[in-house]
């Protein structure tokens, strides 16, 4: 029993704590991937879903195509920016929660008897 208790503490303050730290990284990478952050940054000003108008021969047609394409890029930029903002917000929240977990983690085992004593003593 004592051996198992020692193993528990050894894991909690060793490999277990490391796992919490590494899960911080994987959670952040997960958020970046789920929101396609790298892709969106690379294509921030690209036309939305390639909805573009090919320019014609006349000046008027070219001007119209330029206007259409600029609009498509603006739509793309707005959508991507909103998604990126949401991603960064979630990234910050995730990082904060993970950091809290990392800090609280070593406090949990001693908290068990302390809280028990506090409860009993009132």
């Amino acid at each position, binding site marked *: 029993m004592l*051996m*198992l208790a*020692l*193993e*528990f503490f050894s*894991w*909690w303050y060793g*490999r*277990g704590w490391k*796992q919490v730290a590494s899960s911080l990284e994987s959670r952040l990478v997960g958020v970046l*991937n*789920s*929101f*396609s*952050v790298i*892709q*969106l940054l*690379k*294509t921030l000003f*690209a036309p*939305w*879903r*390639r*909805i573009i108008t090919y320019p014609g021969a006349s000046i008027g047609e070219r001007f119209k195509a330029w206007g259409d394409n600029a609009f498509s890029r603006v739509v*793309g930029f707005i*959508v*991507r920016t909103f*998604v990126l903002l949401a991603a960064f917000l979630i990234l910050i929240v995730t990082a904060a929660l993970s950091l809290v977990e990392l800090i609280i983690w070593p406090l*949990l*085992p001693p*908290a*068990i*008897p302390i*809280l*028990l004593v*506090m*409860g*009993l003593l*009132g």
Partner: protein
Amino acid sequence: MSTLIDVSSSRAAQARLGKTIGETGYRILQASAASLEVAALSLGLVNGQRFAWLLMSPAILCYSLAVWWKRQLSVLPPQSSDLNGRLSVDVLSRITTKTPQHPLGLWQAISNHWQANFFLHHLLLVDEVVSPHLSTDSAELDQALKLAGELAERNNSPTIELGFVVAGLMLASSNFKQQLVRMNIKPEDVEAIANWLGRNLTESRRVKHNSGGIGRDWAFGFTPLLNRFGYNVSLNIEKHNAHFGWLTESSGVVSMESALASSTGAVALVGPDGIGKTSSVYALAQRLIEGKSKQGMAYHQVIALSATDITANARRQGDLEQIMLSLAGEAAHAGHIILFFDDAQSFFGSGPGSFDGTQILLSVIQAKSVQMVLAMSSNDYQRLKSSNQSLASLLTPVVLQELPEAGVMHVLEDKAIGLENRHNVLVAYESLHEAYRLSGRYEQDEAYPGKAIKLLEQAVSYSEHSAVTASSVQKAIEQTHGVKVSSAAPAEADELLNLEDKIHERMINQTLAVGVVANALRRARAGVANPRRPIGSFLFLGPTGVGKTELAKAIAATYFGAEANMLRLDMSEYQQPEDVKRLLSDGQSDTMSLIMAVRQQPFSVVLLDEIEKAHPNILNLLLQLLDEGQLTDNSGRAVSFKDCIIICTSNAGAQTIRERVANGEAIESFQNELTDELIKSGQFKPELLNRFDETVLFRPLDQSELSQIVSLMMKEINQTLSNQNISVQLTPAAVEKIVAAGYDPRLGARPMRRTLQKAVENTVAQRILRGETKPGDQVQLDVNDLEL
């Protein structure tokens, strides 16, 4: 007794605790932690702080234990490189201080785990067969655990899984290995199953790859038309979480990716049916949708197009071209589409449901606007090169090579898991071997692994007690090909052992010839004959009308089930050099060629009459056929003769046989002399005669044998008349008269049938018409009744 597994180690203790808690305990701990936390928070809010602290303490305890179980106890990562540091949690948790440290003790401790059952089920074994053959010698356990460690290393497994320990126990026991051999199981199969299990474990622990997230496709265009006419391979792979394993890293897939990224971006994926062209493209699609591409094609999607679907949607002239152009335009505009033309030849106007889109494809490829893969067979690629050089030159060929046996077995193992889940059956390992072996022998038109997979799938329908065994595979091939491959059943074995009697029911005498042929058939059916050559090959020498053809027919009827299973070619019609082409025609110009006939009916007696009259080039082909058991047709496709019995007949030496038999010599006494004579006279080359399994001499028939032939023919006549309930008998004098009239020294018994027809059938026919013979009558014909 030495202690090999340290049951008192902290790792072993953790494993046992983990097993005690189990998945149920973990859930209870989680639920308890959550409930206590909620209760504590609630009490805290209503100013019951003291009780809140009291509840938080066990809540944290439950949470801590649950986390410890999930991240440590249930997985128990390796601790050190020695045995005790690497044994998996499944093994350690099942061993206690009471477990005897010997092979039998360990087996009894772990045999109820699913990984142990994986071995038992796939080897068709039960515990009662394994336990008695495992020793109680701890030295053997040491050997078993070493083998298990080696298997883990070979499978790149950080821990020694329970399955590897099972394989180690089986392989370290010489007693058990002998038992396996007795059960016709190769000990190597145990290792193969361990590797199969290792791959499954790796696969089950595979971390799902990032597939791009929500904004993956926002920089690419919409593809409404392609979605309507095509099948998005990539999105379906993503949706169903399909995994193509090692195939995604195979040389074919990597070459395809490089070829798509370079040059024109158009690939001709070349290989025979069944080699895995479609699977390779699917594996490429998986690789790309998981963003693994190093060629700038990450998240590109593969869309498969079918000529039939496109044709079905074209209503007017010119619609096809318009649809094709629109599809290509949409793919080019979208920017991340790879078009996949499975059965590409149907887009070049070849085959059913096809149309000629060559010019459209040519212009699209020349513009380098769309990446595409065109899958086709080698023959179709060659045809494209000769018919449309400009298009072919723009395609980068990627030729897929047939997998070696080990590779095919891996594919079959993966397939077996799918079949087991889909059909709720068990696929025994022996069935995989059998599917490989029999598909190699009987499915000549397809390549591995496709043909073996197809056969294994067919075998599911023949499963017994929910198990697909070697016998299921044999039944599947017997059903689809009409061949006998399973062991002869007692009734059939009895028939084979008495084959001579069976043949003699329709053949008179010629015991030497019948015996030789019967022996060859028994060898083939018992699996003793060389499987790379025809079942049997014989040269029948003798005068006309002595039973050479009749014996060939008897073989077709007794061995292949019907006289119709005989392909007969008169070689006197193949005397010119150009006749070789006719013989080997692939069926496009001559549907009656030997090759076509054997392709359609591969289990036959091939009777080549008057072989000595064939052109020497044809005799050279015959050498190849007898040696290799196959011929290659004009278009380069091999056709197997390994399930044929080749019989060549010749009248060469007939005069000598007749004279020497007339002088009272036994036919066996001058066989070698006659053969030498035929070689010296240049009628046969020695290399040809040596290729036959046997040269069989037929002797002329004597008077009594001819009488028996008449009796046999009368049986056939009575068989026909039995429909009218009439039977005919001949008196001995009548038989004698028919023999005298029907025998010709030059033609043997050949005129006998005509004579009998004239003498008996005509007579009976007239009597029936005159009303003299009625149903139920027994007619006896004497000499005077016969119309000769």
